[in-house]
Each structure stands twice: as structure tokens, then as C-alpha cells.
């Protein structure tokens, strides 16, 4: 029963972490509080669904199409819609408010397009839904795959951001965009790259979760909020933080569901989140700003 809950919690947490990594890049590095984040995730899920049911392309192969497309789309969004806001913002707070408002608008636009294309109905398909027998527990292969992706992608990104000059440059942009220019970093390109990378990541998450979650065009906000909670719990801009916060949330949910009451899982999530914020306002692994 313990291993069962543990493994279920880890897979759920892995999914949360996967969902949050893109946002931590977009918010932590590109400084865009992207409220339309979940919509892009749902778009990824729809794309995978469409490719699978209509074109017969397996979701894992679909990643090769969807992720670059989402990367390109996000790049475009950043350059066309967000650059003017970045340029006119006198400081970080003003940019935060402006981007919250602008991406809130974007949320409706994307959702509206999805509604026109797919309607409001639920979508679901089955792929890789085979049981994997682990010692002490049985899990769905597709969920395990999502966990694996979260760990691998998280580790790769972490290494990339800390061990390479380019990655360090991206973190420098997060710390101080003005000073970053003074070491010859083209901040516009670096921020756009981080934002687009975040977009690619979230679409990847969308494709993966579409294999086991039932979704419709209205579900984006749910994912945005979950991702936000993970990002803030883990510390903004901190990939490992997102991974660990995701796992903590996942474990909390399954433990509460198993031993206390499934009715309190979401309440427990929020309670943990709120307590974390109160004890460590900068998140588990964040650095206090201001």
C-alpha cells in the first residue's frame, strides 16, 4: 500500500513537474507571467489527439512535430505580442501586471479558437495505456513515461542552464536584464528563446498528458493554476525546484487520498502551497528578491 501510494504519487508529481517547467522558464527567465500557458498545453493535447486519430501518428512521433511548432508559435507570440510590453515597461512589476492582462486576453483568444475548431466536448484517446508491474505497484506506462520525461527533460535543462555559457547567459537575463546587455547578451533574443523553449516544453507536456487525461477546450485554466502553484512553490525560475515541488504535490495528493480522504486532496494541495508561501515566501528553492 505504501509503495503503491508512493509510486502513484511520484507519477502524478512527475506530471505536475512536467507541466510546470515551461512556466518556470517563461516566468523566471523571460519574465512573462503567462496566463495563457494552460491553453497552449491543451492545444498540444488537441494536436496529439488530432494527429493520432486522423493522421494515425503516434503521440511520441507527434512530439517531433508539435514541440517545434509550439516553439515557433511561442517565439512569434513573444516577438509580436510581448516585446512591445517588455519595451515599454519601466520595471518588473509593471511588466508583470501588463503581461498578466495581455496573456489573459490571449487565453481567451486561444480558447476561442479551440472552441471553434473542436467545440466544447471532451476528448480522449488511448495510447500506451498498458500496465507496468513494478515491485509493489502497477502503473500505467503512459503515466510512467510522463514521469520519465519530466526527470530527463528537467535534468537536461538543469545541466544546460548551469553548465553551459548559453544557459548561464539565460539565467543572467533572469537576474538582471539590463546588466545582461553589458556582457554582450542580446536580451531580446535570449528572452524570446526562453519563452519559446517554455512554449515547447508545455506543448510536450500537453502531448504526453493527452495519452491519459480527458480534456476539452475549457481545461486550460486548471493546468495554468497547477503549474503556477508548482512554479511558485519550487521557486521562480528554478527547474529542480519545479521538479521537487511537483513531486511533493503529487505525493501529498496520493497520500491524502489514500490515508485521509480523497475529498481533501485539492484542499491539501492548496494548504501545502499556502503554508510554503507563508514560511518561505520565495518558494522552496527561490532566492528572496527585493
Amino acid at each position, binding site marked *: 500500500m505504501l509503495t503503491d501510494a508512493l509510486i502513484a504519487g511520484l507519477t*502524478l508529481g512527475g506530471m505536475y513537474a512536467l507541466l510546470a517547467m515551461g512556466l518556470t522558464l517563461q516566468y523566471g527567465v523571460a519574465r512573462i507571467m503567462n496566463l495563457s500557458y494552460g491553453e497552449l498545453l491543451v492545444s498540444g493535447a488537441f494536436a496529439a489527439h488530432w494527429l493520432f486519430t486522423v493522421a494515425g501518428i503516434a503521440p511520441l512521433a507527434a512530439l517531433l512535430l508539435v514541440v517545434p511548432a509550439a516553439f515557433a508559435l511561442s517565439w512569434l507570440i513573444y516577438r509580436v505580442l510581448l516585446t512591445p510590453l517588455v519595451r515599454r515597461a519601466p520595471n518588473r512589476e509593471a511588466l508583470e501586471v501588463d503581461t498578466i492582462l495581455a496573456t489573459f486576453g490571449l487565453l481567451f483568444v486561444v480558447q476561442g479558437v479551440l472552441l471553434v475548431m473542436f467545440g466544447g466536448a471532451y476528448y*480522449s484517446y488511448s495510447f500506451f495505456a498498458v500496465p507496468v508491474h513494478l515491485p509493489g505497484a*502497477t502503473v500505467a506506462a503512459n503515466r510512467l513515461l510522463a514521469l520519465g520525461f519530466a526527470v530527463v527533460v528537467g535534468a537536461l535543462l538543469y545541466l544546460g542552464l548551469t553548465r553551459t555559457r548559453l544557459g548561464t547567459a539565460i539565467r543572467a537575463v533572469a537576474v538582471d536584464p539590463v546588466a545582461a546587455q553589458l556582457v554582450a547578451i542580446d536580451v531580446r533574443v535570449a528572452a524570446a528563446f526562453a519563452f519559446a523553449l517554455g512554449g515547447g516544453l508545455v506543448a510536450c507536456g500537453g502531448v504526453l498528458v493527452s495519452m491519459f487525461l480527458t480534456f476539452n477546450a475549457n481545461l486550460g485554466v486548471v493546468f495554468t493554476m497547477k503549474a503556477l502553484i508548482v512554479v511558485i512553490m519550487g521557486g521562480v525560475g528554478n527547474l529542480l525546484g519545479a521538479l521537487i515541488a511537483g513531486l511533493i504535490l503529487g505525493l501529498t495528493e496520493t497520500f491524502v487520498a489514500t490515508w485521509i480522504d*480523497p*475529498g481533501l486532496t485539492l*484542499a491539501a494541495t492548496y494548504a501545502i502551497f499556502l503554508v510554503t508561501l507563508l514560511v518561505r515566501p520565495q518558494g522552496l528553492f527561490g532566492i528572496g528578491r527585493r
Partner: protein
Amino acid sequence: MASITRRMAVALLGGGLVAAGSAAAQDMKSVKIGYAISKTGPNAGGANVTQIPNYQLWVKEVNDKGGLMLSSLKRRVPIEIVEYDDRSNSEEAVRAFERLVTQDKVDLLFPPWGTGLNLAVGPVFNKYGYPQLAFTAVTDRAPDLGKRWPNSFWLLGTSAQYVDALVGLLTKMRADGKINDKIAMVSIADGFGIDLSKAAREGFTKAGFKLAYDKSYPIGTQDMSPLIGEAARSGADSFVAFSYPPDTIALTDQAKIASFAPKVMFLGVGVGFPLYPGRFGANTEGIMSLGGWSRDNKATAEYREKHKAMHKRDPDYWGSQVGYSSLQMLEQAIERVGKIDRPAIIKELQTGTFDTVLGKIKLRDNMLQEGYWLIGQWQDGFYTGVAPARPGAAPVIVPKPAWK
């Protein structure tokens, strides 16, 4: 002359109104029907499967015939539709229906989706005297509501009806020695799940069943493995879930992954949705839920074909046919009255007998009392009605076959 009685005055006034109304009716170009429904928001998933397709199908069919036959005009009058999105929000819904009645001056209204919104707009329907044929609301207050708002009709009935039918089935299986007396029950923490689980708790206990596991889970729960794990460990032969579509699918998925194959597997909304067999194929065999269809009912089969032709997908197996039937009832009531006289239409709906895809229907206490399936089961790729016991009821398959 000072002794004109109040009754006379009312009659005079009324006459004047009727005269004015019929003058307008003479050049009536269309029958305006309005509705606000959740095209967006959390309700959209349900509204898009069970409700909107039926509205579109019925309107198209009637207009293809030339419209509603209004004998007072001696001609058919086509239907014109005004539709809004209530965004799954009660206040939006109330205002949208107010707008439909007072601004768009529609002749009739279609109901919104779900228990909450149907109740929210109930006072508006009632205040302006429009018939409200709610077919996606399950509430224990249905009998009271029918009395409080005589213009309202609650076609899906009460949770007690469904639970009674389910308890009946399970009791018989136990008597036949096919299942033990333990039941594992989970329910969504929403009006639907709570009403049904409350009734079920009482019903099961009274019938001598033991609830080995009994929990609710919040809307938006993304992982069902703890629930399924606990249910499997509870030793119950019967698993009952009063769930919403995403959870219904997740529960099925997880049960399959965990190789949890209870002898009775009863799930909530979504089992009858077209995407369910699309997703699980042969694995649906033996799964039970609310609603159900008659395999040998020609009208039903015909409706199914029409729906499929228009929307490129099947209707759902629970609310859809009830919904379509309610529209047929409305059509027949209007044509019998012969004009858009709402009090008369309401009266006809209360008392008349109607010919629908469900068969002959007569409402009692503003509710659909019989003639439709409460419990159904996937049998050989068809979601067939198994309870209540009436002609056409298929024998229940127990135990549910193992997962493939």
C-alpha cells in the same frame, strides 16, 4: 354601470390582449426560440454532448418540414433560433434568459445545461410563464419544483429513482449468489455525485449491503489510482462511482491498469458518451451506468442514425434521447394547441400523451415517470437498458468480463 365586476374587467383586458396577440400572430414569420447554454466553462463538455446537438437536430428537422404547424394560422411557421453562451455562470444565465424574454421577445425557451443552471433560471421561466423542459437536471427536489413552478418539467427524475433501480439489481444478484454484500462507492463532490451517493448510502444500507469503501473526491482530480487501490483492497464485489465524464474515463483507465475487475462496475456520467466506447472498445463490456437504450426500438435507432448523420457522432445513451423526446413533446404540444399560447402549451405538456423516440410518454407531476431506462449496461457494443424491469430489458451480465 359602476358595477362592472373585477372578473369582467379582467376578461375585457384579457380579450384585448388576446386580440392584440392574434393580430401580431397573423403576420408571424417565424417562431422564435431562444436558449443560453454553456458553450464555454466547466459545463461545456456536457452541454456539447447531450444538449446542443439535439437542439440543432430538432430545429433542422422541423424547419425541413417547413416549420411548426400552427393550426390557428393554417400554415407552417419556421423556427428561428437565438442562442447565447452563459459561460457556465449562474448570473450570466439569469441575465441571458431575461434578455431572451424581454429584449429578443422569443416565443419559447430551451433550458440550459445542468442542475444548477436549470434551477438558477427557474424563476425567470416561471415569472414569464415559459415551459421549462429540463432534461439534464437530476434533483431530489424535482417533485416540489414541479409544484412550485408548474411550468417546469424535470425529465431525468430524482436520484432516488436511479438508486432504487440499482439497489434492486444488486439485491437480485446477491440473492443469486453472484456477488458478495460489500460495495465500494466513490462519488464526485458536486451536486450530482452527492445527491446520488446520499440516496445510495441509504438504499444500500437498507438493503443489507455493507459499504466497504465510501469516499468523495473533488472535481478536477487527475489521478484515480488511490481510489481504485482502496476500492480493490476493500474486498467489495461491486464498484459504484457517481462520476463526471473525465473521472469516469480516468476510473476506467485506472481500473484496467490496476487489473481491478469487480464483478459489478457501475460508473457515472460519460459511460453513455460516444467517446467512451471509442476509447475503450471491447473493454466496455459489462460496465453499467445511468440511462440506457432499447436495442429493438426502431424509433431510437432511427434517431441515432439521424444524429450521427448530422453531427458525425453518436448521441449519448442517457440524456440525449430524453432530450430529443422532450423536444418532440414540445412540438406536439404546440401543434395540438395550434398557436404560441404558452399557458395552453404548458397545460398540454402536463396532461397530454406524446409519441417520442422513447415510446409513448405521459408526464405525471411534471416528471417523466416511466418509459425510459434508469440503468443500462454495455453489452456486445450496445448500451442496453437493464432496469427498470419492463419490456425490452436485457438480463444483466454478471460478473463483468475480465479486462482485455
